[in-house]
């Protein structure tokens, strides 16, 4: 950094560069919003799915599990648990928790009703049908 490159030049590049890249980011985000309907499975956002997402949130499932690879890494990925296990297994599993197996990682029992279990499964099915560019690499998540 020689004497000819002054602080005010650096400042101007900062403001100019920031504004340029903010605008570029907004343009890309805008285009993403236009493209999403083709990929995000919004056609299947039923009442049941919406309620399932709420149950997912208010029970903080993300505090142990990941969903599409985001969240915690303590318990299996659930973005593809629907094709991995199927609806009946998932419901039976959630009801059977906790396993109580000594030393094994535990999942609480949330005392869901049958309707709530159906909603959660609907949400997990909807999530598994989002176009994720072939992620995860295999069914184990």
């Amino acid at each position, binding site marked *: *950094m020689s004497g000819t490159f002054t*602080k005010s030049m*650096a*400042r101007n590049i900062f403001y100019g*560069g*920031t504004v340029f*890249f*903010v605008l*570029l*980011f907004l343009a*890309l*985000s805008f*285009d*993403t919003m236009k*493209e*999403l309907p083709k*990929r*995000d*499975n*919004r056609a299947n956002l039923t009442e049941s*799915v*919406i309620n399932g*997402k709420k149950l*997912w*949130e*208010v*029970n*903080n*499932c*993300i*505090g*142990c599990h*990941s*969903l*599409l*690879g*985001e*969240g*915690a*890494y*303590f*318990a*299996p990925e659930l973005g593809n648990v629907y094709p991995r296990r199927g609806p009946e297994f998932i419901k039976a599993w959630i009801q059977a928790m906790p396993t*109580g*197996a000594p*030393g*094994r*990682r*535990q999942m609480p029992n949330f005392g869901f009703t049958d309707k709530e279990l159906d909603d959660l499964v609907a949400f997990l099915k*909807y*999530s598994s049908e*989002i176009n994720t*560019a072939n*992620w*995860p*690499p*295999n*069914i*184990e*998540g």
Partner: protein
Amino acid sequence: MQYKSQAVAKPYFIAAIALFTGQILFGLIMGLQYVVGDFLFPEIPFNVARMVHTNLLIVWLLFGFMGAAYFMIPEETETELYSPKLAIAMFWIFLVAGALTIVGYLTVPYATLAKMTGNDILATMGREFLEQPLVTKIGIVVVALAFLFNLSMTMLKGRKTSIGLVLLLGLWGLAIFFLFSFYNPHNLVLDKFFWWWVVHLWVEGVWELILGALLAFVLIKVTGVDREVIEKWLYVIITLALVSGIIGTGHHYFWIGTPEYWQWWGSIFSALEPIPFFAMTVFAFNMVNRRRRDHPNKAATLWALGTGVMAFLGAGVWGFLHTLAPVNYYTHGTQITAAHGHMAFYGAYAMVVLCIISYAMPILRGRAANSAKAQVMEMWSFWLMTVSMVFITLFLTAAGIVQVWLQRFSDTPIAFMAAQDQISLFYWMREVAGVFFLIGLLVYIASFFVKGETKAAA
């Protein structure tokens, strides 16, 4: 202390250190639950410990940033704070709101807490890092606005330095991007897309401005290098940060349902993100080498250099490791992510807050620097915590590589839980390193109580 009102920073720093300690205790609980799965179950399920761990992290860093700003802005603007009373009031509001939230997590089932706190009015809870009840989120906004008002008014009546401006810009950005935490659409892809506008645009965007400003401030003070030079560096660093980091958000848009062109945008721009962190390291060493004075606070200088190096390693090197889409395809959401998250948060943000505390606390306590004995102890804690964090990162990286291999890369992939069993040795070693980290933290706290000969502050 040059300005009386700087004193309001002190409770902020003390609270930061106390909450940091809580964060580490819950980290150790989780680390044990990783290998002894039923430890403290059902009293403290893993997800509860995780919320406490990560939310305490965010909150103590915010306390640190606020304390830093209250300490720095009067000196930068050469005027007393607009309202010290408001700063103290906000301190108590933030502390009580934070404490109640943590108590809520620990004592009430999360779904009940959601019901009690108005989540049915506006559902914002249950998303990683944004687990706070609606009332807490609103509280954060109120505190942030009062804080920014206080600082902006101070800035308006005083000298406007580049460091002050960059710091304020970063803090305003922090508050503005937090507003996206109130947006939680039913559409999961949209939810995730804008969730990153809080998380990524914080740590790889506006927080880097705060980081740069804090580092620049401490470097001016401890090296005596000309402000013009340091502020020029600051602008260069934050330019590099935002130019790479804004589009770099795309490295989170590979596999969540977003268009596939993000694999190119995200990979290319985030691959440039290590550059500002590298520049920060060069900057810190360069300034210390060109120092015009030997400041008696050796510990603060060590923290400043350490921040540069560790931020580069954690964010730059460990970030680059998994940021290219073909690599991230396999590492996404594994222990590799956890390894990077730990070293980056510690190396960049925890360390810069400890750096400003190291510089400011002695002054707030009426001396230029702590006694030699206290400083030696503080430097021991620096090495204990930092080396432990390096080991935590290495063990998690090893765990991550084996996990990816067994569960994702192999021709005969095994199930998640089976893979976890195979890597429990690495989790045990991480937990041991974590205990050393805690010892380092306790040494750090003890260093505040070491007496000895000191010079009065100028």
